[in-house]
């Protein structure tokens, strides 16, 4: 039945000529204002209406903050905002700094969520050759970035330790002339580690990052391994202890030199959240990085067993965030990794240049990935899409594609265009734009479109919800204790890079 109805709504009164350059959005009963320089301010809904009408005067407690942060036209210091914006986007034009090398696709584990990145151990044809490794290092060191982090991934990268050793030594040799700052990091499951390789990694200052999904009932469930009489959890933690002791024996500061760990959240993880955080605390790991699964590439049956909706994940995340804050209030030192990334954007004048959460996204402009066979990709995600049979993100091959050709490739340009928040529908006016980043490759896998549609994009909901949670906790922080904890999470104490170069 056709019905005609009417609505009556009262619009805002707007004194546009009294307002600065800003975006805004609603957080519960508050309104958050942000600008390109990364400044932000919370107002009540009533105060926001007064602000828009140009009637919020100097006597108001928020007036000075609004004025000094550039939200008001009065005394607006465009030069100051430009300086802050330039600092926030310092990564623009700097070139890729994250260099991902896939030393092999072979892996001795069969993790529930690893879907396009591995082959069985007999597949030696998926090892990177020394010739390809040399081409990759030569290629990567053409990057204009003064800092490079070589990240060795797989498969299980230590299965092809010869290539890791070669790349570390060859890049350092080349760097005598290049004079860049180099880091080397191996992302290993630890179950293929030998004392000889471990000793070499420690002696050569290669950072070690492993996967620790939680206590045995979680880790061994997520990361199936038919090892030599031991479960994966026991092996991983034994090697973590070995490395950490080796750093101490070498006289290195254990607060800076220790094995970092990453976890991937499955449905089983969500049932054991506090136990996971407690394990990290117990093992002295100061950063637990709660990451949702990438919901693509799975068989439906697998996803049903381990997957979840973004809403479920966000509920889990919020509960864990509060638990971690509570532990901090009790004096325990642990932070949540993605929260720390956003807090650096919210509370410091810099941007952490985390390649997945920036504008434009780092694929091809902040990172580059070399496949085992010499194929070049804008990111590890691009390589995974290729592994699933879709070559759309392959930029070329080390034999015939220069660094300049790869990083200026039309595909890289398309990814940059599709992730420039200033030009994307909804993002360009979103309050979270100064702190957010979209993932075109993720959009492509979800919808077949690099740009995606924000209301249908889980990453949009994820990032906006996470920053909202942080702002709400700052807004409700009456005694400043939570802000002190959050500010502590933003402090980086870098290891001296390339200590053994």
């Amino acid at each position, binding site marked *: 039945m056709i*019905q005609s109805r009417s609505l009556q709504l009262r619009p805002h009164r707007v004194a*546009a000529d009294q307002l600065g350059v800003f975006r805004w959005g609603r957080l519960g009963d508050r309104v958050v204002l942000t600008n390109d320089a990364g400044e932000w301010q919370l107002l009540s809904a009533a105060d926001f209406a007064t602000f828009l009408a140009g009637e919020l005067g100097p006597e108001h407690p928020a007036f000075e903050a609004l004025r000094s942060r550039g939200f008001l036209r009065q005394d607006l210091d465009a030069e100051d905002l430009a300086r802050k914006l330039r600092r926030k986007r310092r990564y623009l034009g700097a070139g890729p700094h994250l260099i991902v090398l896939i030393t092999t696709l072979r892996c001795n584990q069969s993790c529930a969520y690893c879907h396009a990145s591995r082959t069985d151990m007999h597949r030696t044809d998926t090892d990177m050759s020394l010739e390809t490794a040399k081409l990759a290092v030569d290629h990567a060191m053409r990057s204009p970035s003064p800092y490079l982090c070589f990240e060795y991934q797989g498969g299980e990268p230590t299965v092809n330790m010869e290539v890791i050793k070669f790349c570390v030594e060859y890049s350092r040799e080349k760097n005598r002339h290049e004079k860049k700052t180099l880091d080397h990091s191996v992302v290993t499951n630890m179950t293929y580690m030998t004392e000889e390789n471990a000793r070499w990694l420690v002696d050569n200052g290669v950072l070690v990052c492993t996967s620790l999904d939680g206590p045995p009932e979680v880790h061994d469930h997520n990361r199936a391994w038919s090892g030599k009489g031991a479960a994966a959890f026991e092996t991983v933690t034994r090697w973590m202890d070995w490395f950490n002791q080796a750093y101490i024996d070498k006289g290195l500061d254990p607060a800076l030199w220790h094995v970092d760990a990453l976890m991937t959240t499955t449905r089983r993880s969500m049932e054991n959240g506090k136990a996971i955080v407690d394990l990290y605390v117990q093992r002295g790991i100061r950063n637990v990085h709660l990451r949702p699964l990438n919901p693509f590439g799975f068989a439906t049956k697998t996803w049903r067993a381990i997957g979840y909706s973004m809403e479920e994940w966000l509920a889990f995340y919020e509960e864990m965030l509060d638990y971690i804050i509570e532990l901090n209030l009790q004096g325990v030192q642990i932070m949540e990794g993605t929260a720390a990334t956003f807090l650096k954007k919210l509370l410091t004048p810099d941007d952490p240049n985390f390649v997945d959460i920036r504008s434009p996204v780092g694929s091809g402009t902040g990172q580059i990935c070399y496949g085992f066979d010499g194929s070049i990709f804008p990111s590890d995600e691009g390589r995974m899409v290729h592994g699933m049979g879709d070559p759309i993100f392959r930029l070329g091959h080390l034999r015939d594609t220069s660094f300049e050709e790869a990083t200026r490739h039309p595909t890289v340009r398309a990814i940059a265009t599709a992730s420039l928040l200033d030009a994307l529908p909804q993002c360009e006016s979103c309050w979270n734009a100064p702190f957010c980043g979209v993932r075109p490759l993720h959009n492509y896998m979800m919808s077949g479109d690099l740009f995606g549609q924000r209301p249908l994009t889980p990453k949009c909901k994820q990032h906006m919800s996470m920053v909202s949670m942080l702002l709400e906790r700052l807004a409700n922080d009456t005694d400043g204790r939570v802000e002190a904890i959050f500010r502590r999470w933003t402090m980086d104490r870098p290891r001296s890079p390339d200590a053994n170069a």
Partner: protein
Amino acid sequence: MSSESSAAELQIFDFVSDGRSVRLRLDEGLYPLDAIRGAAYLFLDRCFVRLERLEDRLVDVTLKSKGPTDDEALGALAGEFCNALLDQAVRVQVAASSGKIREYIMARAFFSAPAQSSIDQLLAELDAEELAADDLEIQVPWEQGGA
């Protein structure tokens, strides 16, 4: 059609629902097309959206719900859309008013950057300013102080 009694007074939105979708007729003289498009975009997860220009400056917006289609739900959908439209109209107004300033800031930030040495100097100065006071002992490493 929508009408406006005055800039800050009640605005009236007429809409038609047919048990599956709602349709609003909007005057571009009151609501810029960018605001209509901006509001429509926000509803892509909940609706199939159709924009149709019937005649000069007159746009029909049809929201076909992907969820509940009872009268109450469709009425709420229309209400939320109108709120979003008013919100988007303000954004368009503010963006138009401050657009030149934003362009100037962008130009100063990216097209007249000082030499690298000046950037380094600037960063050092900003660091010194911002980190000078440390009442909360933020800079004290975890292992050397309490949380």
